């Protein structure tokens, strides 16, 4: 399958890779030893990552989608693949997330919400649910912690995701599958979850 808009994705991927490399190589480089716990705090790593993810999406939202739509060149639509349209900002994030996952680097990020339009985007674990509830009350404080699946350990940070533009609000308020329809600009729509494996 063709990857549409590979430019931004590639940039995200590259940046992510750089971060990952920095992160993974900083342990031996910074301490010149393999002593665990001497690297960068994973919370700092996810902070770095979320700033890139947000920035990328922001650029796409304001510099691409908004401009294209304002100039009447092309619209952003959910069924953009079947139409002459471009992806919604949220879909942009989903697709870049998929590419990151398929790259095999191990890092995952995705959007979750307590009021997801599609059920798969709801909280997958009690930790995620708890995090979503927490950031609703304190959007500026990310919810962090170590989670396990079987014997595997992962570090997760959950960052509040606000409705930055009117377009986000309108879509979530009008989509037939949306369970909540009274969002306002600035409201927390959900969260960005970044998951980093704690071991190889």
């Amino acid at each position, binding site marked *: 399958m063709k990857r549409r808009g590979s430019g931004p994705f590639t940039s995200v991927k590259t940046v992510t890779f750089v971060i990952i490399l920095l992160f993974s190589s900083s342990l031996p480089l910074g301490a010149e030893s393999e002593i665990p716990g001497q690297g960068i705090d994973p919370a700092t790593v996810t902070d770095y990552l979320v700033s890139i993810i947000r920035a990328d999406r922001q650029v796409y939202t304001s510099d691409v989608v908004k401009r294209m739509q304002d100039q009447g060149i092309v619209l952003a639509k959910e069924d953009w693949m079947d139409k002459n349209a471009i992806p919604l900002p949220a879909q942009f994030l989903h697709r870049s997330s998929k590419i990151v996952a398929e790259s*095999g680097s191990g890092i995952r990020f995705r959007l979750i919400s307590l009021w997801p339009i599609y059920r798969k985007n709801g909280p997958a674990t009690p930790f995620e649910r708890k995090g979503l509830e927490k950031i609703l009350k304190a959007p500026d404080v990310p919810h962090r912690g170590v989670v396990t699946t079987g014997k*595997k350990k992962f570090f997760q940070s959950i960052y509040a995701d606000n409705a930055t533009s009117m377009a986000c609000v309108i879509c979530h308020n009008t989509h037939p599958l949306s369970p909540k329809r009274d969002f306002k600009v600035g409201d927390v729509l959900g969260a960005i979850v970044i998951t980093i494996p704690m071991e190889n």
Partner: protein
Amino acid sequence: MDTTITSATPSKRKKGLTKKLVLSMLVVGVLPLLCGLLLAFYQGTQSIKEVNGASFQALATETTRKLDLVVSDELAKAHQLASHPALIQFLENQRDALGEVSQADRDQLFQQEQQAWMAKNPDLVQRITQGPIVSMLQQKIGGTYIDESQPIPLITRSATVGLYITDVAGHLIASVDTNPSYLNAQEEWWKGAFHNGVGKPYIGNVGFNQKTGTYTFTLALPIMDSLRYEAIGVLRRIFDTKEFFAPSIDIIRFGKTGHVMLIDSRGMVLSCPILPTGTFISDKQLIPLVTPMKAGWTSATTDGHGGEEASIIGFAPLPNISTITQESTGLAWHMFVWQSSEELFGPIQYFFKWITGFGLLGVGLLITLGYVASHRISSPIRRLQEAARQIGRGEFHEPITINTGDEIEELADEINRMKAQIESTVTGLESQVETKAQEFKYLQESTSKILDGVPDPVFMVDFQENIEYLNQASKERFNLTNAQTIGTSFFQLLRVDPGIQKRLHDEIKNVQTKLSSTSSLPSENSAPIRDPLVASHQEDLDSNRQELKLNDRLYRYRWFAVQTAPDKEPSAGLVLRDMTEESLLQDKLIHGEKMASLGVLSAGIGHELNNPLVGVIGLGEAIQEEAESEEIKEYAKGIVQHGKRMASVIRDFTGQVGSQFIDTQTPVNINEQLEKVLSATKSLVTSAQITVNTQFETVPPVQGKPHDLEQVFTNVISNSLQAMKEGGTLEVTTGIRDQAIHIVIKDSGVGISSSHLSKIFDPFFTTKTQGEGGGLGLTIAHRLITKMGGQIRLESEKNQGTTCHIIFPITESRTGSRKE
């Protein structure tokens, strides 16, 4: 002949007009009808195509949405199954357990287990086909477990022919039956769904399943760990294609043949109420037309079901499922809606047949009504035509009566009026023609009578020299009757010498060609006018006034040309005048005149001789009385002189008289003759105190009798001398002017009045007193000069003197003789 023409032509025309009218009605009526029919048929076909195409497209789109939902729902159900916490926990444990075993041990263990599975090792079979997970799976298929909110449709359960789960490495861990393989990591569906641990839904292509003996397709979903971080297993569900889709597709039927069909991008039939699953649509060329990634309709030449007739086909891809199938295998699923053309276009063909039937009926009606209508129009026209033909033949029996109350009736009235006018005009013309014919008859008779009244014979000869007409005088003269002469040859009638006949023949031709070459109609001036003073007419006159000897009589004749009819060759007319008596009389007169002139001469001679004679006598008497010899000698000398003079007079006279008897034509010296005449008239000249001036140039001699010329000069000079009784001047000159010998004798006498001048050559016309002349001098002069081939004319005015011009043309012989 005439009757056949009059009967055949109108019947032909009658048919023509009727046929034309019927044809034009047909053209006017049928052509638009046919055009309308064809247009309606075309439009109908087009709109049927468009309407049906659009509705087929709509149906295809609708059906794809429905099917999309069915498949999506099935995916959701599978997803729900794959999200079962117990299953996830089991698979997480399995993953962790595998992670603790070395790769080599793991390979060996699974090799053994695969062999055990293939050998249907009861322990293994029991472990995989029983247990809590399998129970859960069986509940889902068997329908014992029903989710309150999301009941699974029974159809999908019955369509399921396989359901099993593998772990993170593709080993079978749970299955409802023993059909699956134990190791699946290398299977397409497994790799597709596992997607390198990221996980992705997978829908496989339809293919023949050996184990179930049916066409099946796979739906595989990754089973994600509890964090949804990575895939820890794969759930595969196998569906019997026909059974899965048939309940959604086969029930959609419209009309007798209309139905929907599900195909993939290769053209393989997934489900169709007519074609069996797994076959391909018959026309490969149809595949690209109906498998674009957009809904639409097409007008294809085949129907995809083996039929070769043109079809309308609506098509649409399954929007969501095709995204998954394309990502999985590269193929998309499409809906195909079709109805047979016969059924589709049946109504319009039926309608067309009916309309054609009505159209033919209409044509028949048009022809019949057209024939009746055209007959109504053409029959009065035919009557008009008949009437016009009668008028053309000059039959004016009765007026035409047509009561159609339209333009034709008006035309009939007009023709009646025209007929009346023509009738009156023709009647007037007839009477005029009759009058003219009578006039012509009278004219002919009067002309004939006038000509009969003419004492001279008159003949008319046509171009072939046959007699056309002859008058009474000619009949009497030549003892002829009309019956024996009209049409006979002119020369049979008048026997003449061959030489003369040739001359006459030439003259006839000459006259006739002259008229036909100058003018076709005889002009008023064509008759020659006898004007002796106009030199140019003289030759014509002479050529037309020749003399001819017939039956011992002398005739002067003249030809004239007559145009008797516009298109006919001109005829030659001949007038004969008997000149026998006149000629004799003239000869006598000439002789008398000769005697008279001889008398004049004798008187002159007498006078000449008398004077010396008196002298001789006187001298003789004197000699008788004179004795003296000297005196006698003197007298004798005088006598000798007188005698010599008398002798010279006599010599002159005798020379003159001697020449009178020369009767043959010889070259005559004009100057000599003039001199002779002048000397002869010297005495008259002297007595009348007349001065004579002569100026003679050397001129060639003329052919003739010397005496004739002498007589001419004598007559002319005598007249001049007589005109100068009171004295005057006589000028006599000869010379050559304009290639002719010119002799001018001019006096200063009393002249001739213009009224007399025209008659001056007429016989017996004279202005002289009794005893001076007989009035024949100039007549004879004219006659003699003409005979010699010359011309004579007089110019004079009262009291201004008279000039006589005598002209002889210089001929070759004359020129030659002059040279000699």
